[in-house]
């Protein structure tokens, strides 16, 4: 499966999916005018990948600074997809990074974690640079 690498723009995050290594990440901001421009390509590759990842170790890093409501909904859908995959035996670990002074981003992480039973979800405060 081809890796997916999309550099960040002013309103969309950096996407780096290394499927061979099992390491995926989303970093930056996400407030596109149309959520499908950012999340369409992501779902298009993520879904078939998770369908065939039984017994693999996958790590997904989220380091988001800001996202809008449709991005939040898309993330929720993404976590639901991961939860289903984890239920089928994909070993999934999610790291949710937030700046220590960003309560909102931390709370978003806690909200998402609530619906996850089979995915390992870690809340990680980033060290201020």
């Amino acid at each position, binding site marked *: 499966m081809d890796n997916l690498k999309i550099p960040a723009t002013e309103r969309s995050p950096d996407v780096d999916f290394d499927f061979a290594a099992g390491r995926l990440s989303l970093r930056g901001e996400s*407030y596109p005018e149309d*959520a*499908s421009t950012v*999340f369409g390509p992501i779902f*298009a590759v993520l879904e078939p990948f998770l369908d065939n990842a039984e017994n693999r170790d996958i790590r997904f890093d989220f380091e988001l600074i800001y996202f809008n*409501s*449709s991005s939040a*909904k898309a993330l929720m*859908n993404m976590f639901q997809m991961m939860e289903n995959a984890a239920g089928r035996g994909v070993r999934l670990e999610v790291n949710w990074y937030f700046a220590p002074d960003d309560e909102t981003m931390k709370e978003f992480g806690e909200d998402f974690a609530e619906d996850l039973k089979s995915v390992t979800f870690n809340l990680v405060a980033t060290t201020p640079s």
Partner: protein
Amino acid sequence: MSSETGETGTAFNLFDAEERVLASATELEHRLADADPGIRQGVAALTEAYSRSVREQRRLVKVSDRLQHQLATLNQELGRRRAEAEEALDRLKEAQETLVQAEKLASLGALVGGVAHEINTPVGIALSCASHLADATSDLQRLFAADDIGIDDFERFLATAADTSRLIMANCERAADLIGSFKQVAVDRTSSERRRFDLAGSIAETLTSLTPRLRQEGHKVEIVCPPGIDVDGYPGALSQILVNLAMNSVTHGYDPGQAGIVRITAALTEDDMVRLVYSDDGKGIPEEHRNRIFDPFFTTRRGSGGTGLGLHIVYNLATGPLQGSLSLDNLPAQAGTRFTLIFPRQIARAP
């Protein structure tokens, strides 16, 4: 439930899961066609409520997205404006710096004018003495050539020669002294060199360079400063302060033709500070201007050459290089203008 417009097949749909639930609910209703009407109605009501809730979610996401988009645009605009404002401020500071530099040059120009005027007098005297001596010498030469020289001719010549040469020497010395002190003032004024200097001497030298300008209008200068106050600091800054204050007295303090007295009183305080009081007996500064005179560009003579930087520079020199303070004293109206400058006799190591 209508499918997302423009999206086909497996295209990305934010509410994919919800739509699938709705689809199966509709199918459930079909399968319940023969069930108890109460159950059918209940399920239909639930489906309807869920469908409305999903519609509402879509609407909220859309509205919220739009608001967040506007916010982001506004933030960008704000950032751009702030950058612009900062840039404008930088440019303003640069312009101000240039003006300060220009003001320095202008006051140096005034100094050079003063120097020329002041040196003219002794040089003029020396020149007329020299020509007088030359005349007397050629007279004597003529008498000598005609072998008609008398003892009293010779004595008169000797007296003239002694007088004129004494005057020539005295005036040349005066000119040399003036040049020396102007040189010091000019160097101090253009450089920001720190050195030890005699307070009384420095004040006198600076005021001397201004005498032609002050004398033109008939103003008198009084300096009271004990000798031997040895200051370690920036004589150039002090000199520029005094020049600015004095020029202000001349331009703002008096009407044309009105003569006044400018006083400078300096002394050492108990805690080794220099306390210098500058005053004139002119019109004074009206109450409503008093807290603005140190602001850059505040001037009451905008039309006639004032930049309003003079006192701003004075204030910066007093609080900067001199590490002291400057205040305008509160005098009753019409009692003239008085400033008090206080600065350490010995400035701290790192200025």
